[in-house]
């Protein structure tokens, strides 16, 4: 399949940093992270089905410092991927494509994702 005579497209290192490319990269990174989060969700639900002892083992992990850090990262990733996903769905309708609109929506999504993750984290503190 490889054909060495075909041109290579320039990669990341030649471009000036832009907020839009940051969100594009973050969308993929958070999406991959959320995919790994499927393992956590599966562990959690299976533990609940397997009995109180397994459920408590999961809860102990969820309340440990590393567990909290992972779950907070996962909550932020979810909120970010959710909001940026809606930004992508709006683009799919052909709207919001000017450079100014794309940059503004990027900052909006980024800031709202941090605020949203903190609000959800605090609202759930009764449990976690």
């Amino acid at each position, binding site marked *: 399949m490889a054909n060495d005579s075909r041109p290579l497209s320039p990669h990341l290192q030649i471009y000036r940093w832009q907020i839009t490319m940051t969100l594009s990269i973050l969308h993929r990174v958070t*999406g*991959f992270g959320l995919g790994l989060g*499927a393992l956590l969700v599966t562990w959690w*639900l299976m533990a*609940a089905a397997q009995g109180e002892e397994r459920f*408590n083992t999961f809860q102990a992990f969820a309340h440990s410092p590393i567990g909290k850090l992972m779950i907070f990262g996962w909550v932020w990733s979810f909120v970010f991927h959710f909001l940026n996903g809606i930004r992508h769905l709006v683009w799919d309708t052909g709207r919001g494509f000017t450079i100014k609109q794309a940059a503004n929506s990027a900052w909006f999504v980024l800031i709202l994702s941090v605020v949203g993750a903190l609000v959800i984290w605090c609202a759930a503190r*009764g*449990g976690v």
Partner: protein
Amino acid sequence: MTEEKKSAYTHTQPTIRTPLGAARGLGSAKEGAHHWWMQRVSAIALVPLSLYWLSYLPHLTSSNYADFLGWIGAPATAIVAILFVIASFYHAALGIQVIIEDYIISEGLKIATLLLNKFTFFALAAACIFSIAYISFTHGHMTP
């Protein structure tokens, strides 16, 4: 690229192959818009399915075993949870497929990783759905 496809693609020789015929089998995914479309379909489904959990955060994160079982096993919660697992794990499998297609160049390793990706998410989804159903049939309250 095979010689036959190359000549059809560049139109250097007379051919009766259509441009569509020449394009088939090319591209990283070897297929058309189905993947792209299903990614959107699952994304749209996930908007309401994700928002559903916001009003139930204290239940969702409850450390009390009996309370958690009663809540997740209740019919409405269990059904939304199963739908969420199907839509989100399918969406994840589609998304990670693109990452694999983008970064893994070796054809053999790519196919192996694509299969592993699909099998893993289907297995995880089966485990989640079975767990939710098991809890629901053994511990679920009939409300809400």
